[in-house]
């Protein structure tokens, strides 16, 4: 049977506000336990929440960026359940009237096509604290520093059809919130967490299969692996005559498998109702206008501009604009190096594989945009060939300084002296007299192939430094006699 995979995601992003969503406590990560927990965060008797306007502003920024309707009147509701790290016994969230309504986001797939993913809604809520199960002699410790940190929960439509698409979508959200400056995107610290809803159905069937939710997956790699292992589990289950049961599952990266956490029957009835301690939030059009006016250039506009201004392909523009840091890096290279297509190539191919190999982000690149741009200048003025440039690039990555320094210290400057090239070619042809004879006897088609051999020999003889254009021209003249 051919199976189709259906995936929808809920992404929790911690908003980068200075203080918590309903109290004045700071939100810095990694402080001593409970040093950032005020009376409100502790859920003390008699305390009341006061909404942080900055969180509202950030949610509106996100809504505008995904072309969504911003609820003119949105309402906070209480989600009631007991847990030790949930101090009030309820989480303040939004249910019926979220701040961000339906929107969408475009993602670039690996084959170069663009796919539009629907966003059902995004709502504001407070984060819970953390339970610490180690080092308390069998007891559990509770750290409420995180309690009350503002979260924007972004709920997608079930529009994704593979784990790769899901990852591309999470990356796009990740890039967007960082573009907007509303979330630091640090997944290792839990700033961006993902719940994956996965189901399968026979290809061609319109109704959805029964879904399972994989809770709290915290890296791009694990999202892909967790979804793929869950897909395989569901396929195996159904093909063995079983049935998928709706439940919440956890992904275990060590065993690369998901396991059941709780079934639908065990799920809480959260008894949502409007929080009587908070008034409905009314978003005035003037407020929204001011938020809109302050929006930075976003990926879609940037992609468009990269195509029109630099003549890049849609795919290249999408890749380069996929993060604000990468886009800025690219533009800096262009500014110095002058040739946008050449810059795009170098940033995407050579720099991309270098960063991949090192496992670092572009903002930690060992080759600065200034150095790469400087090297492109030398390619463009024929000081070095594209091939030599790779050597220069490696040297820059190894920390040997800028391109000009490397070219001169290593003697990599291209030879453009016609006399010198002429002499080198004569020596090379003399050493390969047999091949020269064969060449001259051959027909036009064969000659084409053989010409490459002589070019190779010439470049080898010059250690790659001879100007390839001149080599071609002179060689042709000499062989044709």
């Amino acid at each position, binding site marked *: 049977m051919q199976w189709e995979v259906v995936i929808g995601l809920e992404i929790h992003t911690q908003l980068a506000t200075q203080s918590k969503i309903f109290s004045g406590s700071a939100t810095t990560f990694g402080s001593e336990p409970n040093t950032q927990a005020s009376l409100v965060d502790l859920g003390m008797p008699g305390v009341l929440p006061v909404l942080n306007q900055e969180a509202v502003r950030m949610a509106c920024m996100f809504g505008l960026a995904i072309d969504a309707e911003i609820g003119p009147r949105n309402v906070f509701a209480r989600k*009631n359940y007991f847990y030790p790290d949930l101090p009030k016994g309820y989480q303040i969230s939004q249910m019926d009237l979220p701040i961000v309504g339906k929107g969408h986001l475009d993602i670039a797939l690996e084959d170069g096509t663009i796919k539009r993913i629907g966003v059902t809604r995004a709502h504001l809520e407070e984060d819970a604290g953390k339970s610490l199960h180690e080092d308390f002699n069998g007891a559990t410790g509770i750290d409420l520093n995180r309690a009350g940190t503002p979260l924007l929960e972004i709920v997608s439509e079930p529009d994704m059809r593979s784990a790769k698409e899901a990852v591309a979508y999470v990356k796009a959200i990740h890039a967007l919130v960082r573009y907007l400056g509303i979330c630091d995107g640090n997944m290792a610290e839990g700033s961006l967490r993902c719940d994956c809803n996965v189901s399968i159905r026979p290809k061609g069937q319109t109704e959805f299969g029964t879904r399972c939710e994989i809770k709290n997956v915290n890296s791009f790699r694990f999202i892909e692996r967790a979804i793929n292992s869950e897909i395989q589990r569901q396929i195996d289950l159904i093909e063995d005559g079983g049935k998928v049961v709706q439940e919440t599952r956890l992904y275990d990266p060590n065993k690369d498998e998901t396991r059941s956490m709780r079934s639908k029957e065990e799920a809480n009835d959260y008894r949502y109702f409007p929080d009587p301690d908070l008034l409905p939030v009314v978003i005035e059009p003037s407020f929204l206008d001011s938020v809109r006016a302050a929006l930075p250039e976003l990926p879609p506009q940037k992609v468009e501009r990269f195509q029109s201004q630099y003549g890049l392909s849609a795919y290249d523009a999408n890749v380069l604009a996929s993060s604000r840091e990468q886009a800025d890096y690219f533009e800096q290279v262009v500014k110095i190096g002058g040739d946008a297509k050449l810059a795009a190539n170098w940033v995407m191919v050579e720099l991309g594989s270098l960063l991949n190999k090192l496992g670092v982000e572009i903002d930690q690149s060992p080759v600065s945009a200034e150095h790469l741009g400087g090297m492109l200048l030398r390619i463009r003025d024929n000081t070095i060939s594209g091939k030599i440039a790779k050597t220069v690039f490696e040297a820059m990555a190894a920390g040997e300084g800028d391109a000009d320094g490397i070219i001169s210290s290593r003697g990599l400057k291209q030879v453009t002296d016609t006399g010198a090239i002429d002499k080198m070619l004569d020596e090379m042809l003399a050493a390969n007299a047999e091949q020269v004879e064969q060449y001259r006897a051959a027909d036009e088609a064969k000659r084409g192939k053989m010409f490459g051999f002589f070019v190779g020999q010439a470049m080898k003889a010059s250690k790659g430094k001879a100007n390839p254009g001149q080599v071609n021209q002179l060689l042709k003249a000499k062989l044709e006699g």
Partner: protein
Amino acid sequence: MHQLTLAEIARGLADKSFSSEELTGALLSRIKQLDPQLNSFITITETQALEQARAADARRAAGETGALLGAPIAHKDLFCTNGVRTSCGSKMLDNFTAPYDATVVAKLAEAGMVTLGKTNMDEFAMGSANESSHYGAVKNPWNLEHVPGGSSGGSAAAVAARLLPATTGTDTGGSIRQPAALTNLTGLKPTYGRVSRWGMIAYASSLDQGGPLARTAEDCALLLQGMAGFDAKDSTSVDEPVPDFSANLNASLQGLRIGLPKEYFGAGLDPRIADLVQASVKELEKLGAVVKEISLPNMQHAIPAYYVIAPAEASSNLSRFDGVRFGYRCEDPKDLTDLYKRSRGEGFGAEVQRRIMVGTYALSAGYYDAYYVKAQQIRRLIKNDFMAAFEEVDVIIGPTTPNPAWKIGAKAGDPVAEYLEDLYTITANLAGLPGLSMPAGFVDGLPVGVQLLAPYFQEGRLLNIAHRYQQVTDWHTRAPNGF
């Protein structure tokens, strides 16, 4: 000295007839002597009170003035008081020392008031008889076998017995006005949002409102002046200017339009109370008021709606009492579920548990629309009824309670009978309107209250009417035997 009203104390302190320390000492010894009969205090803060009194005297000596400077107060034991046990009348919080002051407490302390202690109350403010307190029932000074009303029963009994001139209370469904009526006091529930709820341990957040209990309207005006005002720490507090509540106490009632809802005089109302209401209306007419019959057609839905909304909010508000961070924790919990179940099962009393269960049920999936949403719709209808009525009249008058104080234990085991006592008071909470109860006579030697309701933020109008009424009547001056 214990006979003095807040206004008289203000004059006595101002003209140096006595010091705050003298007054505080006298009242503390009276409390220690008489309160064992009443059980109106949970905590007496003697040392702190004397310190505060001396500080107030020093402030006055330094030239400071103010009606509340050096005057005594006691707070219902759900207002958080920094460093002092704040129990909410519950075993759950018997060990809870508040780490901060409620805004009301802080404001009155800043005005120089001296806190004598924390008063008894129905557990978590749930009750109309003050019988559900972990610290035992409070007795009505007018007849020690009778209840003082609730949930601010301790606050009412203490003032009625002249242990001190005024106290704070809270009113969620009548918890200031009903005990005021049952103990011959003047009690005011302000407009929702007039007094900050920061530090006031919540029962039902959308209904709770703090306010004053005292013997006279004049005293209520003084105390409300110190309590009211916008507070950025309470999102439901309203940024509305606070007028001088004492300025218009003597304004003329000539032409005042009084509405008498026909629905108030149906079955369930003690006819002797109905007569006293009519008599008070006559007095107001003599003062120039014009009486008009009006209708509040949705009034009969108020109690059912209240007993969905209030428990629903309470079920969520009281979730934080889980034995994890503060308050009561059961012995040797064997796991997390056991910790929750036994801490809450042992820490909460029967009425609190009943309302948590009712509220949890009303919010459950599948019942939410039928109960909670429907109750909110009724709430809107009730508000609309009032809006329509206030197009025609300036104030609405009626009984505060359908019956005088009942005997302790008489309604035990019949919660609905007790709920029905809130018939006249609950609508003001559902609509968020200000309401006042004032003494209007006696039935079988027990006090009867008349309730006045006004449009939003018209507390001044209520106080004006009550004050003028108290100038021509003497019900409010009568004291219970032995006190």
